[in-house]
C-alpha cells in the first residue's frame, strides 16, 4: 500500500463528489433541512391541534335529570362546557360531532342518593376523538367533585373527619437519572438514525465510484494508470466512508438544533415530548461521541460491503436495484433494537447492526457496560475488516471489473 497514492485518489474523488449536485441533496440538504422541517412541522402541528382542541368549548347533552335539579345545576356550573337541550338522536349527534359527549342521569337520581342506594351515572363519548375525550373529561371531573362534596356532607353530618377517607397517601417517585428516561423514550431512535444514515450516506457514493465509473467508461482509464488496484480501492473506500460519516454527523447536528427549537416551541405547552427534547439537550457530548465511536466500524462495514456489491453492477441503475433490498437488511435489525424488551445479551452482541443499535440505546440511557461495549466494538471491527478485505479482493477480479 502506498499512502501517497491512496491520498491522491481520495482527494480526486472528494473533489468530484463535492461537485456533484446529487451529493449536495443526499448529504447536505436532506439532513440539514428535511429533518428540522419534519420534526418541527410535526411538533408544531401536534401542539396547535391539541391547543385548538383544548380551547374548544365542547357541547354536552344531559339525558334525564329532571327529578334531580341539584346535579344538573352542578353540571351547568362547569364553565368549560356548553350544555345543550336534550334531543332524541343524541347518539347520532355524538357520531356526527355536533355534540361532544352526553351524560345520562338515571331516573330518581336525587332520591336514590339520599337513600344511599347504588347507582351509576354514564358518560357517552366517541373514543379516539380527542375533542370528545376532553368533553367527557370535564363532565367526569365535575361529577367527581359533586360526589366528593356529597361524601363530605355525609361525614360532616356524622361528625367524622374527612381524613378518614385517606389513611395514607401513595406517590410514585422516579429514581432514574433524567438521561435514563430519555434513553427509554427516544434514545434508541438516535442510535437507529445514526446507523441508517451511515448506510444511506454511503449508498450513493458507493455506487457512483464503482458501477458509475464503469458506466461512464472511466474504469479502464484509471486502471491504465500506474496506481495499484489496492491503493485505488482504498482511496475510493475512504471517500465512501467520509460520505457516510458526514451524512450521519450533519444529521445528528441538525437534529440537535431541531430539538432545541422544538423545546422553544413547546415552552408554553408542557407535553411529554417537550420534556424528552429537553433531556436530549442534556445528553452532552460524551454519549454522542461514544455513539459515533461505536458507529465507526459499522460505517466501515457498510462502505466496504456496498462497494463490493455495487462493483458487480455494470450500470448505476443495476447497482441501485442490488442495493435497495440491502436497506431492508439494515432497517430490520435496527428497528428490532427499538422494540421494548429487546436487551443486550452476549449472543446478540455478535449480531452486526443490531448490537450497535442496542449499545447506542444503552449509552444514551447512561449505562456503560464496558465489557459489552468492547465486545461489540471488536466484533463489528472484525466484520468491517472482513468486508474491506472482500472489497479489495473484488477489485482485483477481472471478471467483476470487466463483466459483460
Amino acid at each position: 500500500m502506498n499512502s501517497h497514492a491512496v491520498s491522491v485518489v481520495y482527494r480526486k474523488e472528494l473533489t468530484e463528489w463535492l461537485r456533484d449536485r446529487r451529493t449536495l441533496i443526499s448529504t447536505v440538504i436532506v439532513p440539514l433541512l428535511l429533518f428540522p422541517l419534519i420534526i418541527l412541522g410535526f411538533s408544531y402541528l401536534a401542539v396547535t391541534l391539541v391547543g385548538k382542541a383544548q380551547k374548544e368549548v365542547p357541547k354536552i347533552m344531559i339525558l334525564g335529570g329532571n327529578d334531580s335539579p341539584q346535579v344538573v345545576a352542578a353540571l351547568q356550573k362547569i364553565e368549560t362546557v356548553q350544555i345543550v337541550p336534550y334531543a332524541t338522536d343524541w347518539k347520532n349527534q355524538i357520531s356526527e360531532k355536533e355534540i361532544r359527549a352526553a351524560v345520562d342521569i338515571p331516573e330518581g337520581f336525587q332520591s336514590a342518593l339520599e337513600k344511599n342506594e347504588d347507582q351509576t351515572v354514564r358518560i357517552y363519548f366517541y373514543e379516539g376523538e380527542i375533542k370528545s375525550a376532553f368533553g367527557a373529561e370535564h363532565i367526569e371531573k365535575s361529577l367527581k367533585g359533586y360526589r366528593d362534596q356529597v361524601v363530605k356532607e355525609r361525614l360532616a353530618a356524622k361528625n367524622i373527619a374527612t381524613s378518614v377517607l385517606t389513611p395514607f397517601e401513595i406517590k410514585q417517585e422516579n429514581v432514574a437519572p433524567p438521561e435514563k428516561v430519555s434513553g427509554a423514550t427516544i434514545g434508541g431512535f438516535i442510535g437507529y438514525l445514526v446507523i441508517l444514515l451511515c448506510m444511506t450516506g454511503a449508498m450513493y457514493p458507493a455506487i457512483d465510484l464503482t458501477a458509475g465509473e464503469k458506466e461512464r467508461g472511466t474504469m479502464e482509464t484509471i486502471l491504465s494508470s500506474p496506481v495499484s488496484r489496492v491503493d485505488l480501492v482504498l482511496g475510493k473506500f475512504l471517500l465512501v466512508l467520509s460520505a457516510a460519516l458526514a451524512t450521519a454527523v450533519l444529521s445528528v447536528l441538525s437534529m440537535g438544533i431541531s430539538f432545541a427549537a422544538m423545546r422553544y416551541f413547546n415552552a408554553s405547552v408542557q407535553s411529554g415530548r417537550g420534556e424528552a427534547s429537553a433531556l436530549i439537550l442534556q445528553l452532552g457530548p460524551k454519549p454522542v461521541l461514544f455513539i459515533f465511536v461505536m458507529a465507526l466500524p459499522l460505517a466501515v462495514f457498510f462502505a466496504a460491503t456496498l462497494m463490493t456489491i455495487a462493483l458487480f453492477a455494470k450500470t448505476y441503475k443495476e447497482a441501485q436495484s442490488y442495493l435497495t433490498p440491502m436497506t431492508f437488511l439494515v432497517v430490520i435489525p435496527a428497528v428490532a433494537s427499538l422494540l421494548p424488551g429487546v436487551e443486550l445479551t452476549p449472543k446478540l452482541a455478535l449480531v452486526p447492526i443490531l448490537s450497535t443499535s442496542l449499545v447506542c440505546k444503552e449509552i444514551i440511557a447512561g449505562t456503560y457496560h464496558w465489557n459489552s461495549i468492547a465486545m461489540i466494538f471488536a466484533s463489528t471491527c472484525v466484520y468491517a475488516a472482513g468486508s474491506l478485505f472482500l472489497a479489495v479482493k473484488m477489485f482485483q477480479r477481472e471478471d467483476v471489473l470487466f463483466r459483460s
Partner: protein
Amino acid sequence: MPGFPIQIEVLPVIETRRLSKLFKDKKRGEIRAVDGVSFTCKPGQIYGLLGANGAGKTTTLRMLATILEPSDGTAIVCGHDVVEAPQKVRANVGFLSTATALYPRLTSQEMVEYFGRLNGIPEADLKKRVDEILTRLDMNSFRDRRCDKLSTGMKQKTSIARTLIHDPQVMIFDEPTLGLDIMTARTIIEFIRECRQRGKTVIFSTHVMSEVEKLCDVIGIIHGGKLLVEGPLPELRRKCSEDDLEEIFVKVVGPHYTNAEAHTS
C-alpha cells in the same frame, strides 16, 4: 559524468511470448480470446494490429497495458514483465482507447494533473509539466472547463494530454478513432505520427485499412485470437502477391473465417 552510449543491438521495446487469454462464458464455455500471440516491436516503430471485431485486438492490448492479466505466456514492455511488475509497465505506457473516458466533474487541467500525480510526478514539477503539455496541444482556452462540458475534439486532446503527462516510452492505442468524426480522427492520426517522431514506440489496433496503410511500419493481422501474418506492408504484399491491403486481409483471414462466426458477430 559523461555517459558512454554503447549500442550493442536494438532491443525490442515490446515483446510478447505466447501471450494467451482465456475467458469463461456461461453460455459458450471457455473462450480463447487470445491464443499464443508472439511478436516484437522495435523502438520508434508503429506496430498496427489489424483484425475484425472480436479478433482479440482489445484483449491483447489490454494485457500489454496490464489492465488484464494473461492466462498464459507473458509480455515484456520496456524491460518489465507484465505479470511480475505490472505497475512498472504502466509507468512506461500511455494507454488510450475509445473506452477510456474522462472524469466528467474534473476540469481538463485537473484530469491531466490527476494522472501526473498517479504517475508519481512531484508537485514541484507537475505544474510546469502540465503547462507545457496543455500549451503544446493548444488546450489553454478550455483547460478550466469541466470534462462533461467539452466537445469531442477537446475531450480527445485531454485524453492525449492525460496519456502523455508521464512521458511514456510506449503508447498503446486501442481503436483510437472508433466512432470519431473525420476531423477528430485526423487529430489522433497526426498525434500517433508525432509520437514516432519523438522516438516513442507505438502499438495500435484498428479495423480501418487506410489508417494502417498510412501509419504502420509493421502490420500484424490477427484473427480468432491468433496472429496469422506479420511484417512490413511491402513484405505482406510480396507474400500474398496482392497490392491492396484489404485484399491481403481477406486472403489471410478468409480461410479461417467460418460460417458460425458470421452468425455470431
